[in-house]
Structure formats: C-alpha cells, structure tokens
C-alpha cells in the first residue's frame, strides 16, 4: 500500500471512529471499565453525609476526630488489543471483510481509550506473533496502532490463539483490559483464556460473517479454506447441503459461545456489514450494569 493512500485510510478511520468514540461510546467506555482499580488517595476529616463505612478507624483513633479514607479511581488503565490477523480474516461478503471490521472496531476502542487517558497496546498474531506494540498514551500512538492494523502484512496464515495469549501473559505483567479480537477458528484456546483471565480483564470479540453460517445459492461452489488451503466443492443448489452447513456452523459457534458463557467470559459477537456501534454500546451498558453490583 502506498503511503499516501494509507495515510488517507488512517485519517478516514480516525475521523469516523474518533467521532464514534467521543460522542457515543466515551461515557459508556468510561463507566464500563471504571472502578476496577481503585487507588487510595488521601485521608480527610469526616463531613456529614460521608459514608460511615469509609471511616478509617486507625487514623480516627490516633487523631480523636473521625477521618475517612478518600479513594479515587485508577484511571491509568491499559488496554491491549489482541488481534487475529490470520487468513480467515480476509473473508467478508457484506461490504467489508472481517479484517476491515476489526480495524474499525479496534480504532474505535483505541480512541475511546485515549479519550480516557488510557494506554493502548497492540498484539497482532496469526499462527505466530506478528506485531507487538507496547501500550502507550497519546493520539500519535493510537494512529500508529491503526497504521499497523491497516498495513501490516501477516507472514503467517493460520491461527494460534493459545500461543498469542501465552505471549501476551509474558509481555503484559501488569493487569490490563484485553480485547481478544478473533474468529476463534482454532482449537485448544480455552485453557489459555482461563489462565489470562486470572489476572486480566478479558473481552472476547467474536468476528463473524453471515456467509459462514449461510451458504449462498449459487450452484456449485468451489471454496478454499483461507487458512489450510483445502479445497471443497459444495453443491449449494441443494437445500440439504445449505441447511446442513448452517446447522454445522451454528453448532460450532454455539459450542464456543456455550463455553464462554459457562466460564463467564465477556463475549461480544460482531458481524461484517453490521454497525458495531449499537452492539458495542449495548455491551458496555451491560458491563456497566454488572460493575455497579
């Protein structure tokens, strides 16, 4: 990709997503992820109306007057975008590919994070680690992240979620909020997710395309598996074939969803060609509601 074109693209994404981030999601993002890290700030004299539960009894005893502990939210949040760049992400039948959707989504998340003075990092992977951008602050950094998302040509083709999470655990020692953006076309990542979840706040963003669930009726369809290169010839004229495909794909997706639900992993399903704003907004609201409990 020639640089001017890339710059234009980055610019366009910046405009579109930063607007989204500031106008629609900023507040929700803020509240959805606040309160996780609460930092002690100071001890100050009790004033009527303060929560009695906040009284610091040690200081009160020493001083003879009631004092309360004042906390403040830890706003130095770190957001890691763990992005799947495998071959299957090049698929997309509805206006955009999955990779394009992912890029927009990540840009939105990154801008949302920057608005809240958070650090943003990027870990792109395929069947190997493609790119690691350590978390930093600032618009310039976000733009760099977007550039990597747009322009990076993955060297691998497959998907190794477990490997990526393993690497992530090693480079990101401090607690952070991690968005795992993938289509989860891999096996054996369940254990890795559980390990990561012990320390980090993990949100799984499941990117799909409607054609993964529903074959078009176009006669014979010669498909190449984007990752394995395997060729498959399907007769999509046959209703039986299309139905069986839908059943199988739905079952695969359900199994994943079921596992995540059982392990209480935040899962955000997205589809190409659909606006992710509302889904994201709803997801944030849900999270916010859970936080307040």
């Amino acid at each position: 990709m020639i640089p001017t074109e890339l710059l234009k693209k980055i610019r366009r994404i910046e405009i579109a997503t930063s607007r989204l981030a500031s106008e629609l999601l900023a507040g929700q993002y803020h509240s959805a992820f606040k309160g996780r890290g609460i930092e002690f700030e100071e001890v100050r004299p009790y004033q009527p109306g303060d929560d009695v539960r906040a009284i610091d009894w040690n200081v009160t005893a020493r001083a003879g007057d009631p004092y309360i502990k004042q906390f403040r939210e830890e706003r130095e949040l770190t957001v890691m975008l763990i992005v799947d760049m495998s071959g299957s992400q090049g698929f997309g039948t509805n206006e955009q590919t999955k990779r394009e959707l992912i890029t927009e989504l990540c840009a939105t998340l990154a801008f949302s994070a920057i608005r809240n003075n958070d650090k943003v990092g990027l870990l792109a992977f395929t069947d190997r680690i493609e790119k690691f951008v350590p978390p930093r602050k600032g618009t310039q950094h976000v733009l760099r992240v977007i550039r990597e998302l747009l322009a990076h040509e993955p060297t691998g083709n497959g998907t190794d979620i477990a490997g990526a999470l393993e690497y992530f655990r090693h480079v990101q020692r401090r607690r952070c909020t991690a968005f795992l953006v993938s289509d989860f076309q891999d096996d054996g990542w369940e254990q890795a997710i559980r390990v990561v979840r012990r320390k980090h706040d993990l949100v799984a963003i499941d990117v799909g395309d409607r054609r993964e669930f529903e074959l078009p009726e176009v006669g014979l369809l010669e498909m190449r598996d984007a990752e394995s290169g395997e060729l498959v010839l399907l007769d999509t004229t046959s209703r039986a074939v299309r139905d069986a495909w839908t059943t199988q794909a739905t079952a695969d997706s359900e199994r994943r969803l079921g596992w995540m639900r059982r392990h209480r992993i935040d899962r955000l399903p997205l589809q190409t060609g659909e606006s992710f704003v509302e889904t994201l907004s709803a997801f944030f609201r849900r999270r916010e509601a859970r936080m307040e409990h």
Partner: protein
Amino acid sequence: MLSFHPDMLWWLLLLIPMIPLAWWRFARRSARPAVPWSTTAAARTVPHGWAARTRWVLPGLRTLAIVMLVILMVGPIKGDEQTSKSVEGVAIELVIDRSGSMQALDLTLNGRQVDRLEVVKAVAADFVLGEAELPGREHDLIGLITFGTYADSICPMTLDYTTLAEALVQVRPATEAEGANTAIGDALALAASRLNDLEDRTDLNTDDIRSRIVILLTDGADTASEIDPVAAADMAAALGIKVYTIGVGRQGLVPMPMKDAFGRTHIQQVRSDLDETTLQAIAEATGGRFFRAQNTKSLAAIYAEIDALEKTEVAEERFFHYTDLAVTPVTLGGVHLPPLLIFPMLVLLLEIVLATTRYRTIP
C-alpha cells in the same frame, strides 16, 4: 470397411499431451480458482451434494470430446474398394468339327458310350465354364465355329460364356443335306478372319487382348475345303494367330450309326481316317501344338494343357474410394450416420450446457 488414413496416424500423437495435462489438472488442483472462505471445517461433516460429487463429468466430457476430435482428425474412413482389373485376355476361337464322322461312338462319357461330338461339346463347355481339373476361362473372348462341309460362325467372340455354352449344346452333327464333309481349311480360315477383324466388330477394348488362338478340333481329314488347310494355317500365322489342333477318336475301325434306305439306324464299323500330318503341320506353322485325344480323359487333359498354356494375364489395380466419416454422412450396416464430427460437437455442447446450468461453478 472401416479404417484410418494410414499416413494420418501420427496425429494420434496429439493424445500424448493429454497425459501431462490431466496430471497437471490433478496434481495442481490447489492452483485452481476457488473462493477463499474463512473456514471449510463444516464441510467435513456436511454432505457435498450429488452435483459436487459428479463434477468430474465436466472434465470427463471435455476429455472425451478432445479424444474424439483427435481420432476424427486421424480420419476414420469407410473405404469402398473398387478393383479395376486391367485384364489382358486371350481371344479364343473354338473350332469344332461336326462332320458326319463325329457321330462315331468310340468315346465314353461318364461310362456311357456316346458319339464324339457329345464328348467334345461336354469337354469344351467345361473348358469355358470350368469343371473338374479345368479351371474355366475368365476375361477371355471366346467364339464358336462349327464346320461340316461349310464352316459356320455359331457364336461370335463373347465374354458371355452362358450364351456360348448354350450355343455349344445346340451343336448337332451335320446331316448329309447340310453337308457332312470336313472342311478344315475353310473353318480355319473363317476362325482366323474372325479373330482378325475382332477390332471392327466388337466394342471391346482389343488392346486388352494379349493373343489370339484357335482351338481346332477335328476327327478326320480335310475333304471339302476350298482353302487348303496348310494355306489357311499360314494365313493364321501371318495374322499372329496360334492354332492348337486336336485330333479326336481312335484310328482304324470305329462304330458308327448309319441310316439305311428305310431310315433305320444301324451300327456299322467305319474306318476313321485322322489326317494327323496336316494337323501337325497346321500347329507347327502357327506356333501352336497338336494333340491327340484317344478318349474323353485325354481330351480333357488336352484342354487343361491349352488352358495352362494360354494363361490370362490379370493386372489388378485396387482402388479405394474413401469416405471421410468425420464430415460425410454415411450408411453403415443399415444405420444412417451423420457426419461423425457432430458427436464431439454434441459432447462439447453438452459440457457447455451442463457447465452453465446444473454444474455452474463459482468461481
């Protein structure tokens, strides 16, 4: 007859590139265009559909059409063999004595005692038509002249041996009224004349006549000729005609049916006088041979010998009229075939129709 143009067979070499082509299609399967799909894992459990399983029909039809086209290029032909025999025949004039002496009953035919003429007729017919040791003649112009006191042309030179044989059967011994003497010289002269003006009287291509011969068969001595037999022989020799002479019958006394004054038939012993010297002279003068036939068997042997001496030369040229089946409609064994080229075309059409309808493949 179905075959191929023999000098077009090397076109079959075109079939050889089909092998790497097929290999390439098979081995480089992954190079084929396909729609990239995020995952085809579901296809492991999903049925592919019958059209997908029978997709090979399309390359199969294409291959079939190519093979058929190559074979048609080699050119299946139906050869109608046309044999044009360039035959050099022999013009043979059979000259048969039917004088009174031919009634002599000194020969047997099939164990029956019959007169000489019957025997001669039977053997001559066999000579023409073929029977037993005699192979029969083919492509030869044969004419028949009989003679008693007067020589008559019974059958002109012809290839129609059936007619000739019929004429032969009709030959009867000459009655006294017809003239029962023996005019060898006249008969020979007539035969020579007939053979000589063959060109004028027939529309046959006389270039094809290799030689002209006379087979003169008699049982006596010349008694009534206006032309001396030896002079006639010299004339024949001058015209390039060969004369084979056959003397029939035993020498000496032979039984002869004779009618008396009351019309009754008696068998009398009559002296048979064969003029061997003259016959020999005739044969020698013309480059022929003289034969002596004492009985039916030896007569047949003589004819066989003449038959062998006068071999017809046949130069056979075989022509094939080829019908190129690829482009010409033809009837084979009662089946009307359209030009064969239509079949690979139909196969190709079928392939195209299938490929654009039920077997339409994306991409």
